């Protein structure tokens, strides 16, 4: 099976949703921990250089949360000490740490998500929901480099005429406004021309068909089904209360049993699948390349 980056964007979305839902629904140290560690592993594979060095930031979020939560939350029965006459409780510290892990895990997976889903894939997904919004998104993204180039041209022309000075902040602001003024008029007129050209070529005259870059393959079905199945195991354990922690007023840990073991195992498998597929993909690439 191919890595998540090369799968259908819809399939990738389902996998991310299946990982994120158990993490954020339910303050549970095991799912949060598994999510955080596996997410960091995946991010380590996807990032390069500077991004990798920034990975240490995520556990720091979890620790900071453990310190901050007791300052605002005084629930809990086991008082550790008093700060400004407010009790600091063990429950609040632990809850803060777990909440921090949960947030860090969600952030890590969100970062992975933006590595896997680039603008083009996002468009393939939004295009299904709303072709018009997707078209506007696509046009805006195309306008960004176009307008930037045009702004540079306008600036050069105005500077060439001696209309732009950059001696102080006010001059710079005036220069910026001058450039924007010319740019906006041009952009709007240009937009109208584009729109008329679209209408002339029959835009909106019938139902829209799309060229599909991404094809749903059997592997996508398999990966989607696997993720949903594993997620459902976790959800079942959660609904029957086998992995539900109670934090306040006193920490109550659910008894370990077959249900919780199955849920954590399933969730671990689910979280490790993307990284495993990525490693497998790279290993395959290496092997194939060395034989050429």
């Amino acid at each position, binding site marked *: 099976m191919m890595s998540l980056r090369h799968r259908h964007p819809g399939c990738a979305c389902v996998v991310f949703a299946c990982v994120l839902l158990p993490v954020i629904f339910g303050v549970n140290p095991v799912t949060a921990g598994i999510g955080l560690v596996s997410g960091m592993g995946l991010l380590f594979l996807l990032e390069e250089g500077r991004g990798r060095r920034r990975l240490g930031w995520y556990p720091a979020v979890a620790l900071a949360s453990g310190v901050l939560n007791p300052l*605002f939350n005084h629930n809990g029965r086991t008082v550790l000490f008093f700060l400004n006459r407010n009790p600091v409780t063990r429950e609040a510290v632990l809850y803060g740490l777990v909440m921090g892990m949960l947030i860090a895990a969600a952030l890590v997976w*969100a970062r992975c998500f933006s590595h896997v889903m680039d603008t083009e894939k996002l468009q393939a997904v*939004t295009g299904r929901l709303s072709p018009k919004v997707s078209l506007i998104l696509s046009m*805006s993204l195309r*306008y960004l480099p176009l307008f930037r180039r045009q702004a540079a041209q306008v600036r050069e022309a105005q500077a060439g005429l001696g209309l732009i000075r950059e001696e102080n902040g006010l001059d710079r*602001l005036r220069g910026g406004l001058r450039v924007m003024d010319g740019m906006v008029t041009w952009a709007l007129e240009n937009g109208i021309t584009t*729109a008329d050209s679209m209408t002339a070529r029959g835009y909106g005259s019938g139902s829209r068909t799309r060229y599909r870059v991404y094809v749903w393959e059997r592997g996508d079905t398999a990966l989607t089904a696997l993720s949903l199945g594993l997620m459902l195991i976790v959800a079942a354990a959660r609904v029957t209360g086998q992995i539900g922690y109670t934090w306040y007023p006193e920490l109550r840990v659910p008894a370990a049993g077959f249900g919780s073991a199955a849920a954590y195992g399933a969730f671990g498998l689910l979280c490790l699948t993307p990284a495993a597929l990525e490693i497998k993909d790279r290993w395959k690439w290496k092997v194939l390349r060395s034989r050429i």
Partner: protein
Amino acid sequence: MTARRTENAFRWKTALRYGIPFLLMPLLVVLGGWRLGERFYAWGILGMVGLSQVLFFTGFEKRTVGSRRMVIAAVMTALSVLGRVIFAPIPGFKPITAIVVITAIWIGGETGFLVGSLSALISNFFSGQGPWTPFQMFAWGMIGLMAGFLSGPLRKNRVWLILYGAFAGVAYSLFMDVWTVLWYNGGVNWPLYRAAVITALPYMASYAASNVVFLLLLGRPFGEKLARIRLKYGV
């Protein structure tokens, strides 16, 4: 093959359009209130924000929107994202809210919502996507939608425009603080919210100030251009 695909897509959207307000939203409220109790607020609000977003985008499909208006929306979105680049020499200055408001009062509230939402989405490709993206999309979208409702006084009177700009900056900051607390705490916690608001005060001030400045700077030239486009091409 093609016809069937289009038909399927149509059915999908119809299902979402009726399913969200009449099935998913009540289900979220009832089930959430019943199963999650106190912690419901966080997921309830997160879910509502997400669902209303989907509802708006599918609803946008139904109305006959001329291709001219669509392209204008794309142009304004790109301009608001690029505004950062042009004004990059001056730090802490974002024209996004101002451009969203101006678009909303001259072209319409729905276009304003769209420009606000998509500006948040696209600019986050540069400054980082995260769980806050739907919230920012919603906040900027609502700023646009409300400006559309108030377009009469906002067009005529600059004082209203200034007031709305300041209000939008404050409201945006307060709304994003709600997100911070809900996300962090999983429920309502007033001391934490107060602390978040206080730490965010400088941001709130800079949002409000830059909104007012940009509305004063851009309000007239942009308004004239958009009014001219409306008059000339009937957008």
